[in-house]
């Protein structure tokens, strides 16, 4: 096995291209800038195209166009840029165009806008939140697979630690199974030929192939997301069977929580961890089961409380749930702050366990 020492950003780009990504359009924004830099360098070498768009809105709509033509296409930014893209992401969800959005966030304040369906209409976005570069290499490929499988936008949720840590990795092409034919992709056949294809947000159609109309179309879209919710929820957990305290966290935060919980376990503390791997669909049933017997559920996230809503919706007794995270940035405001530290997390878990034992 030959490992290469890669920045997280470069590993993600290599994995995306290995998965068949051939189009990327975005606008530079720290810590997502390296992503477009590596895409600009590497996509042309693989027969692809990378465009530095004038805005995030332009970038996501270019990706939408490339995906409509059948290419594996992506855009990327950090949370502020993701907010600008939400209208186009809603369009992609409602007109069933598979795009991938790499959100290299500055923090963990994007949980809501990634998981709630940030634009108009009844839809959600599948959101993958890798804990480290090894998992990011898998998720960067899985994102394209799930997008194509369900014809949906998929958000890849990273952060500055994931983007800038360097690790020895080997990028292998992952096989996630067969995919349906893209019999919907626009192929250049023009109107009037009787064979043109159309992608509709409103469920319209054309004279010789009328669509279902808005109401039926949007109902079917909503049902599709219900179906995905029942299939694609992923999680990772350990020590929950006899844990008195179960700690949850996502992405990098989940990695840190896991590390601290393993340390506390080795010291004899009855503590477990639960990490949603998909933020949507949220692995609610698994969380309910993992927290059945515990006394308290702690939520570690670097925001004022976003994932905690999903935790409270799924833990049987929501009074068991409390937050041990908070808003925390570094001085620049562009990166995760001092709270993303195993020593701080450890202190907060131990303090909460002490209160719970009283």
């Amino acid at each position, binding site marked *: *096995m030959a*490992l*290469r*020492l890669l920045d997280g950003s470069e590993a993600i780009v290599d994995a995306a291209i290995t998965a068949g990504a051939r189009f990327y359009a975005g606008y530079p924004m720290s810590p997502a800038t390296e992503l477009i830099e590596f895409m600009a360098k590497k996509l042309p070498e693989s027969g692809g195209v990378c465009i530095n768009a004038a805005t995030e809105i332009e970038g996501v709509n270019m990706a939408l166009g490339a995906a409509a033509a059948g290419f594996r296409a992506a855009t990327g930014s950090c949370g502020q840029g993701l907010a600008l893209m939400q209208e186009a992401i809603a369009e992609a969800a409602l007109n069933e165009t598979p795009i991938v959005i790499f959100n290299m966030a500055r923090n963990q304040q994007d949980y809501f806008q990634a998981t709630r369906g940030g634009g108009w209409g009844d839809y959600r976005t599948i959101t993958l939140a890798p804990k*480290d570069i*090894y998992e990011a290499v898998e998720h960067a490929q899985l994102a394209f697979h799930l997008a194509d499988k369900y014809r949906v936008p998929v958000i890849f949720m990273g952060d500055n*630690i994931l983007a*800038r*840590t*360097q*690790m*020895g990795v080997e990028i292998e092409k992952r096989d996630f199974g067969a995919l349906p034919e893209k019999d919907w992709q626009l192929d250049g056949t023009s109107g009037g030929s009787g064979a043109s294809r159309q992608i509709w947000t409103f469920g319209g159609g054309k004279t010789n192939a009328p669509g279902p109309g808005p109401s039926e179309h949007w109902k079917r879209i909503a049902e599709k997301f219900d179906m995905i919710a029942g299939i694609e929820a992923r999680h990772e957990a350990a020590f929950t069977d006899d844990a008195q305290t179960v700690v949850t966290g996502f992405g*990098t935060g989940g*990695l*840190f929580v896991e*590390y601290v919980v393993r340390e506390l376990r080795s010291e004899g503390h009855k503590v477990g961890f639960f990490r949603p791997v998909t933020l949507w669909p949220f692995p609610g049933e698994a969380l309910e089961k993992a927290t059945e017997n515990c006394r308290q559920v702690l939520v570690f996230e670097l925001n004022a409380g976003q994932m905690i809503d999903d935790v409270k919706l799924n833990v049987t007794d929501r009074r068991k749930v409390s937050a041990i995270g908070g808003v925390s940035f570094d001085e620049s405001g562009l990166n995760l702050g001092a709270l*993303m*530290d*195993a*020593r701080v997390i450890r202190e907060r878990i131990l303090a909460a366990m002490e209160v719970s034992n009283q």
Partner: protein
Amino acid sequence: MEADLFISGIGGQGVQLVGKTLALAAINEGRHVMLTGEYGGHMRGGSTISTVVIGAEPIKSLPNLPSAGAAIALSHQFFENVATRLRPGSLVLAEETIAANLPQMADPRVTTVPAMAIATQAGNRMAAGMVMAGAYAALTGIVSPDSLVVAMKEQVPAYRRQHIETNERAIRAGAEAVPGLAFPVVLDMADGDRVEA
């Protein structure tokens, strides 16, 4: 097991280059590696720390290390950012002229290396970091000095290629300046049998 190391100094001393050289050398020897940088503002004169984790298996350590078992100190300035995170019994490899100014640490095993003097003799005092890398490799056996030389050559940017020979002399002189395998690190060992470097 995983060997974890802080390299600490002042921006401009080549701290990140030393970290990357060690990491690349380990990769070339078939090891798993994680490398991160912690900067006090990405500039010359500020605090700069490189953290390197090397293991026989995929890395389990966190990207910002809560603690480590070894440190290379190129300067006493800003070293407190590292000293508070060293586990008891850690190896501290200190540049000789700054060693006396290091902050108090719990039970360190300090080894000093006259890295500035050796680097000056090798042709450039700026190669002190390379001397320390060579010394660390020889003390621990974690990578061979030969691998360090190859890794250094791989990543010195084109506009600094004139420094390659000096760097190589610095690495090899650093390795010879310390007793070989005085702090051996055995990576191919189960976690339970962990031996501190």
